[in-house]
């Protein structure tokens, strides 16, 4: 083996000169952009830098993470996403395309190594919650939202949905049934929707999909015979003209800043508006005003906060429904928050509808999945 030799010093080439000038413009442009961002927003430097946080590297990590929000970094990230989409039809790590214009969340397609065990743990959690609620005289109904890729299979085209996921929903429902937990499968209702049950460029159900799901849940609640009280549904419905609806999957793919004609085919949606109706004065007997509070509470995910699922459930039931669902709540997020809230402590309902996403059932367990009901 020959001894490694230092590189020869060669005169500057044209390519080298272009690289050097571009690098300097880029570096110092980036520096100016950082300084401007830091002075304008005060969001670059960590707020509370302590000696300990400096020594263990937390401050530098935080600063590095915040740099992704600077103008140059944001613009570069958006450009990269746009180029990947326009040249390769690549939608980033979280989004996949089925048939042209139909986008799906990759999380739905994930296969987890210990998925069955996670599903079992979650079933045990739900069962424990049901038993604890029953001791307080509160009924529980679990409503499972099936994957968009399960319901809209005709729009998958060449997108691969692992066959091992086919039994996930049935496994979950049979485990809950074995534990004696009432659960409702919304698949049939969603498949029966005349149009699309899910948006093309969004992970959520359409208003028609949410309506079909709401009616199915309402039917099951009535069958349970829970006293629903006298609160009013309280919504007036108005038709709205068709309008472009930006999909969350387009945003997740980082393409929402592109001109509309370059984005995945935009979605034009005609919808209804559910306007809360001002409640009439309480009866003279209801001195402190809690007679009209709903006896049904919904906890769950963003499915319960989009496409007017809860207003449609209220109208289908003919009674008020309290919505305690949270966007991004996943399996246990909203349940954990609700059971520790004053709303639950002071005005507990007679029935809780726990809406869950199929895609979350087998995912790795998180701290927020440990749901317990206070004694």
């Amino acid at each position, binding site marked *: 083996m020959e001894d*490694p030799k230092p590189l020869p*010093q060669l005169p500057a080439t044209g390519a080298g000169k*272009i690289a050097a000038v571009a690098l300097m413009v880029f570096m110092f442009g980036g520096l100016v952009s950082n300084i401007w961002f830091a002075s304008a927003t005060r969001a670059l430097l960590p707020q509370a830098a302590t000696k300990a946080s400096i020594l263990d590297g937390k401050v530098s990590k935080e600063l590095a993470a915040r740099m992704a929000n600077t103008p140059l970094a944001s613009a570069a990230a958006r450009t990269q996403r746009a180029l990947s989409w326009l040249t390769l039809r690549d939608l980033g790590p979280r989004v996949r395309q089925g048939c042209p214009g139909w986008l799906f969340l990759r999380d739905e397609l994930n296969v987890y190594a210990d998925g069955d065990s996670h599903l079992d743990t979650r079933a045990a959690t739900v069962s424990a919650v049901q038993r604890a609620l029953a001791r307080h005289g509160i009924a529980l109904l679990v409503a499972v939202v099936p994957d968009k890729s399960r319901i809209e299979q005709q729009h998958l085209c060449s997108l691969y949905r692992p066959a091992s996921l086919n039994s996930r929903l049935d496994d979950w429902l049979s485990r809950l049934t074995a534990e004696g937990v009432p659960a409702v499968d919304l698949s049939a209702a969603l498949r029966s929707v005349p149009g699309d049950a899910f948006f093309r460029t969004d992970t959520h159900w359409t208003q028609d999909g949410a309506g079909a799901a709401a009616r199915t849940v309402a039917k099951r609640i009535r069958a349970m015979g829970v006293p629903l009280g006298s609160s009013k549904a309280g919504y007036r419905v108005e038709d709205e003209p068709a309008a472009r609806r930006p999909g969350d999957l387009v945003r997740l793919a980082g393409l929402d800043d592109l001109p509309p004609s370059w984005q995945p085919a935009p979605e034009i949606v005609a919808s209804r508006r559910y306007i809360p109706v001002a409640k009439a004065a309480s009866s003279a007997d209801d001195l402190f005003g809690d007679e009209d509070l709903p006896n049904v509470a919904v906890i769950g995910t963003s499915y319960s906060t989009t496409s007017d699922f809860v207003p449609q459930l209220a109208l289908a039931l003919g009674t008020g429904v309290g919505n305690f669902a949270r966007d991004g709540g996943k399996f246990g997020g909203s349940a954990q928050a609700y059971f520790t809230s004053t709303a639950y402590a002071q005005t507990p309902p007679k029935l809780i509808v726990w809406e869950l996403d199929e895609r979350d059932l087998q995912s790795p367990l998180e701290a927020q999945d440990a749901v317990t009901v206070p004694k």
Partner: protein
Amino acid sequence: MVFASLEFLTLFLPVFLAIYVLSPARWRNGVLLFCSWFFYGWWSPVFLLLFIALTFWGWLGGMVIDKAPSRRARGCWLAFFIIVNVLTLCWYKYANIVVDSLDSVLALGHAGPIAWQRVVLPIGLSFIVLQSISYLIDVQRGTVQADHSVIRYGAYQGMFVHLIAGPIIRYAWVKRELVSRTVGWDGFTAGARRLMVGMSMKVLVADTLSPIVDAIFSLHSPTLADAWLGCGFYTLQLFFDFAGYSAMAIGLGQMLGFRFPENFNHPYLASSIQDFWRRWHISLSSWIRDYLYIPMGGNRHGEWRAYRNVLLTMAIAGLWHGGDSWNFLLWGIAHGVALMVARLWRNFGMPAVPSWLSHVLTLVFVMLAWTLFRAVGFHAAMAMYRGQFGLNGIGLSDGIHVLLRPLHALAAGLGIVCVLLPLWQQRWESLPDTALRRLWQAAWPLAGFLLSFGLIAARGSVPFLYFQF
């Protein structure tokens, strides 16, 4: 801090370059040293103290050895200073695995595990220690004179361009530039272009393939398709990650007035294992040769001693890489055995293998050995080998299928083309020097760099493989 990060490219580097270029020449080593310490301390200020201590230890060692009155005394001092360096490295690299292994033995006797707080390996420690050892040995041999300036020696040892991941720079290679170097336009332009090329290699290819490799190597039972896809992607990832980082280090060195040697020379086109080690991580393989293999006797004391030395040298090289499992030792031994077999084959006058077959066999062996290198633990490696030999089924697993994206195919294709590109080098060089060709030479590193920056910004965090070493 890593080179492929927002904070390096748009914060540290412009500020450092401005201070460095505007400083008088005699201050530049000091600027380089203190900025390098800042660079090192960015993520782990606590380890900076260890790093500074090792720097002083190396500098002091050089002085003491240089001033020692006799050859014997120089040897004794050398051993003393090297042992402290090696013990430091061994502590941080092997304490955990030794305790884990002892726990396994104790578990056989139903005894409880040893109470132990896990030791964290400081970034770049292996490189720091090897540089220090080579300096001390060179001083003892008289190849270089001990540096009396602690700032200058510190700048050599701590220079941020090769601090985290090499290449391993010997003092002898840069001693002249440490005293006086030219920071000029020629070096800056060449360095800037090299930095862009290295960044493209690392980010566009290595980092893009990284999530698939991670997913496949964490499968319990990878299939044939999974295992070879994972092994193939890792083969590309490792090369583009490390060679890309080396290219960035070489480029930054050029921008600062240093001229480092090449660290890679198209290793996947090697015609034999020996050839592979001439082309892969050249600064490490030449270090191993000069400071391990030759001092052990090399091939000067007969064939069997030469075989033994090859095996021992490669085993030590494996140990140097490893820290969290014995796989690295096995990887080193596997390469040692392959080198022995190649030597035996030649010495026993066996027929020469056709050139194409030799290339293929070398690459397949290197890939199989990378499996051992990448897998987390022995059982994971065995699971991958079972997959590679088709014992877990054939088709791609569902979990991997849903992860694959067009970008991965592009990155892998780009990687394969770049690996094979030297085969068409002669044809390319014989093309007329047209404006279009010059434009291409200027445009592709710049386009790659800008795309890489976009990917870095979109990702948020950047993995780097050689941190663990």
